[in-house]
């Protein structure tokens, strides 16, 4: 069974204090890993897609990296507006009926204090 574990569950940072969020996964054949940001009461907002180990993507203060077992979301000099829950999801595709399998982690709730 595919599993996705995000850590920590919650993270409090001072404004400007850089840190990393972790997403470790166990899948039989990774076809893609996605990062999302979710604000309270809203739908997830897409951030990054990573397809292969060694790949990196950047957007403003965020940088996502991927290895064969985990992904990191690095946040550099965060601001209060970066406060949100960050979700990762892994995609596996199986042959035959019901072949789509996207498994989400429970998320990391990030709070950035001014």
């Amino acid at each position, binding site marked *: 069974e595919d599993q996705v574990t995000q850590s920590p569950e919650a993270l409090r940072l001072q404004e400007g204090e850089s840190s990393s969020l972790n997403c470790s996964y166990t899948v039989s054949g990774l*076809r893609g890993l996605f990062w999302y940001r979710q604000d309270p009461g809203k739908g997830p907002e*897409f951030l990054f897609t990573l397809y292969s180990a060694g790949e990196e993507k950047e957007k403003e203060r965020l940088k996502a990296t991927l290895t064969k077992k985990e992904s990191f979301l690095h946040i550099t000099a965060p601001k209060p507006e970066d406060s949100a829950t960050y979700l990762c999801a892994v*995609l596996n595709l199986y042959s035959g009926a019901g072949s789509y399998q996207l498994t989400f982690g429970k998320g990391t709730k990030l709070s950035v204090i001014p």
Partner: protein
Amino acid sequence: SQTIHQWPATLVQPVGSPLSLECTVEGTSNPNLYWYRQAAGRGLQLLFYSVGIGQISSEVPQNLSASRPQDRQFILSSKKLLLSDSGFYLCAWSLVVSTEAFFGQGTRLTVV
């Protein structure tokens, strides 16, 4: 650009009542469409996905059903709601199954 609309934003329904949540996508053709449920303290759970009109795949047995009557319309239904159906329901779309999905703003359903 593509946009996804999902309504209503909030809904309070009595146990045993029917349910119909609607989702539409604009700006793309033949999208893959998805219904997810997000319960407190749990990850997003895929309920249904569709790769085309009339084609629905169900991921978990439940009190819900889905239909895709038009290319860019996806409907989540129930004949009789249970208390356990309460949650945050999200519709999403993607170009193909191997690419990122884009989510609507969600419907908060409370069954009382």
